């Protein structure tokens, strides 16, 4: 449905991303050769167990990884900001070849390679992130309004000055105030009569913009909420503040890292609905990271299943959930208690996620997979297509270079 609407242009494409961590026991291959695309306006769900590398993948988009001990061992994250085609305004026409984007040369950048000042301009503006725990991600010493305001001060100085009714060529202390880059003595300069009035107008404009951003998240009485500190708010409210902050600049890509895990189910449903509404209205692409399968199924257009630093299966939500091909995907689905599962008969996946220190050239699911054979233990499967949109890394569906191939008919362990 998205391909038809947005022409399937990619907003970001990850190619062979490798993130390793130096530890006492050796180099941990947290993300080990991950490739996927995120298209315009789509939601890609990224699921997997704790420690499979899904958060690290999400954070690498914004370069939020600690380096060291992290090592960007290879690969790229190409990002191309939306530039809507002038001919058709995004609906797809001949000049833009149906992509809805401005034709011309490729304007994409490698997020892992650009200088940090460029990254800073993208972060929070073109790519934003919602974190799992809003209690930790918000600054406890600042009212929430001031925290949302920072996004506008960093990325929307010109709009702010225009909204305040000041000339676009405003310079000096007032502009520095509106771009959050004060210099020594600015406090004094801004206290001078003329500048003081201008400063107040900027502050009022800022408050309007912040209230507008909060109102988008359907909070009651945004003006009152702005003055509150994070600890005064409930978990659901804090998460709404974080969403308001993330969507403030209308980003092209939103990374949502388990945004509802810390919330009650009743609140979770509300937050999901909110993210989906805002996304549809603004055509934002979302990378939705979660360990909750039923939730990912509800929100995603496509799903990628991650295991031990690799993507083992990726496809449209319907394909993956109706016809899971990788034993790990099947295992995850069977482990969720259903209405008719007899008690004590949950299909648990035996064992735990392996440590990713110098992994051998074998399928990473070996040791936990009920169907493994010699082919799995001696060869490393890679993602191959079953249908044009459904890719799986397993020898059940693809020929193995050597050894006996596994199949679903035979349980070997």
């Amino acid at each position, binding site marked *: 449905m998205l391909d038809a609407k947005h022409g399937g242009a990619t907003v970001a494409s990850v190619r062979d991303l490798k993130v390793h961590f130096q530890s006492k026991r050796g180099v941990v291959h947290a993300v080990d050769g991950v490739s996927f695309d995120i298209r315009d306006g789509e939601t890609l769900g990224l699921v997997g167990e704790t420690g499979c590398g899904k958060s690290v993948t999400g954070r690498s988009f914004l370069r939020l990884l600690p380096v060291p001990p992290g090592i960007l061992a290879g690969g790229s994250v190409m990002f191309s900001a939306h530039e809507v085609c002038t001919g058709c305004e995004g609906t797809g026409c001949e000049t833009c070849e149906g992509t809805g984007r401005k034709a011309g040369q490729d304007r994409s950048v490698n997020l892992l390679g650009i200088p940090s000042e460029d990254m800073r301009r993208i972060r929070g503006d073109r790519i934003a992130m919602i974190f799992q725990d809003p209690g930790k991600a918000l600054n406890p010493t600042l009212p929430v309004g001031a925290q949302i305001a920072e996004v506008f001060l960093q990325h929307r100085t010109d709009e702010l000055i225009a909204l305040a009714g000041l000339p676009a060529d405003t310079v000096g202390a007032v502009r520095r105030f509106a771009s959050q880059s004060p210099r020594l003595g600015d406090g004094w300069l801004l206290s001078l009569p003329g500048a003081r009035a201008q400063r107040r107008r900027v502050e009022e404009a800022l408050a309007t913009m912040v209230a507008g951003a909060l109102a988008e998240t359907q909070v009651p009485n945004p*003006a009152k909420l702005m003055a509150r500190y994070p600890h005064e708010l409930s978990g659901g409210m804090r998460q709404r503040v974080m969403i308001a902050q993330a969507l403030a600049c209308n980003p092209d890509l939103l990374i949502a890292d388990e945004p509802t895990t810390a919330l009650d189910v009743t609140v979770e449903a509300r937050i999901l609905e909110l993210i989906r509404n805002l996304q549809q209205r603004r055509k934002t692409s979302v990378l939705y990271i979660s*360990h909750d399968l039923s939730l990912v*199924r509800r929100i995603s257009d496509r799903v990628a299943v991650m295991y031990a630093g690799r993507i083992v299966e990726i496809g449209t939500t319907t394909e993956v959930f109706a016809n899971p091909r990788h034993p790990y995907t099947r295992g995850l*689905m069977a482990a969720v208690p259903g209405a008719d599962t007899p008690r004590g008969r*949950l299909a648990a996946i*035996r064992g735990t996620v392996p440590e990713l220190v110098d992994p051998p050239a074998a399928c990473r699911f070996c040791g936990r997979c009920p169907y493994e054979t010699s082919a799995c233990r001696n060869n490393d499967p890679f993602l191959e297509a079953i249908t044009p949109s459904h890719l799986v890394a397993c020898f059940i569906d693809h020929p193995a270079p050597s050894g006996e191939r596994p199949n679903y008919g035979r349980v070997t362990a």
Partner: protein
Amino acid sequence: MRAAAEPQADDLILSIREVKKHYPIREGALQRVVGHVRAVDGVSFDIRRGETVGLVGESGCGKTTLGRVIAALADPTEGGVHYNMDGMMSRIDRLEGKAARAFRRNCQMVFQDSFASLNPRHLVIDLVGRPLKVYNEATSANLIERVVELLEQVGLGRQHLYRYPHQFSGGQRQRISIARALALNPEVIVLDEPTSALDVSVQAQILNLLNDLQKERNLAYLFVTHDLSVVRHMADRLVVMYLGKVAEAGETQAIFDSPHHPYTRELMAAKPDLEADANVEVRGLEGNVPDPARPPRGCRFHTRCELATPACGWEVDDVVRWLEDAPGMFEHLVGVERQTDFAARLAFDSEEAAGLLSMAVRSEQVPEAMRAAMRRLNLDGDKVEIEFEDVGEIGLTARDDGRMAACVLSPEEVASWKRT
């Protein structure tokens, strides 16, 4: 000491009767008590031998507090937990000496956070072996063998004896907690969100383990959780709590087939399971859980219930809550002169604001049920006099097949309701 009305049955282990747990709120230099947080506010149910009772609700509804009261980790403010000791029901907070020790060994607890509940400086052998030592169940000579036996029951082994908790994964640590709870061969285990910190695949392992142990040892579980799919899988009976009170109780399957309380319905609708139709509409609850220090009158759920009727206990606080969320209204409120919870005079700083309120509460801006419950509404200059129907507590009523629900609506009315 035993009251005559208490239930008597051989298979009864614990009987929770009208348990209340209130925590004082202290303020000022003298730490004067200015109110109470009513974490648990009158809850009753029974736990029988070999069964699993599920206790579900949102965070802050008092389910963990109740679990702690039942495990005698907190004393109830009122009411009590009665324990079947050799055919006699005795209140656990009045037990002394040997009887108290007997209760403690027969009622164990597994906590949510295995990082916090296992001492990081102790080895597994100390953690699991301590109850055996305290109750003189094992001497140092056979302690190791007993601990190994317990570890093997939970899927660990001899090689894990001399390790510290941090050397284990989350699932393994939860297994250690379970082994410790099993050490004294208890009758009942309070499981406080035992799997919510775990991945689904590991959760499945732990749930299977708990089931096997239950069958082997005829254990009773009180399973405290917020995860409905887990509770449906595990529990024979279900107690749904909201804001310190029981909203609904009964057989698990019956409740899932037809919830009798709108809150249960909302909980179930918020999280459809993996098998459900992918296109099923999902909507959560609007608003926050009200302050448990001042719980709503009538039915506690009426502030968030889309099915609320005029008989659900609309009160002055509902008007004040509405004012708080209405942009630019709360600032004009200068005083609330309360005659009862249901009648008050709201004073504003201008006649205009008072007029706006009296218009608003007559309009679509407030729930229809709230308008219908309004007995009187007078605009008097800058004051608004408002009075609602006086409604008593809406308590649990018995339904068919041992079910209980605290709702004024009939099951058919709850079931037939569709979202607009």
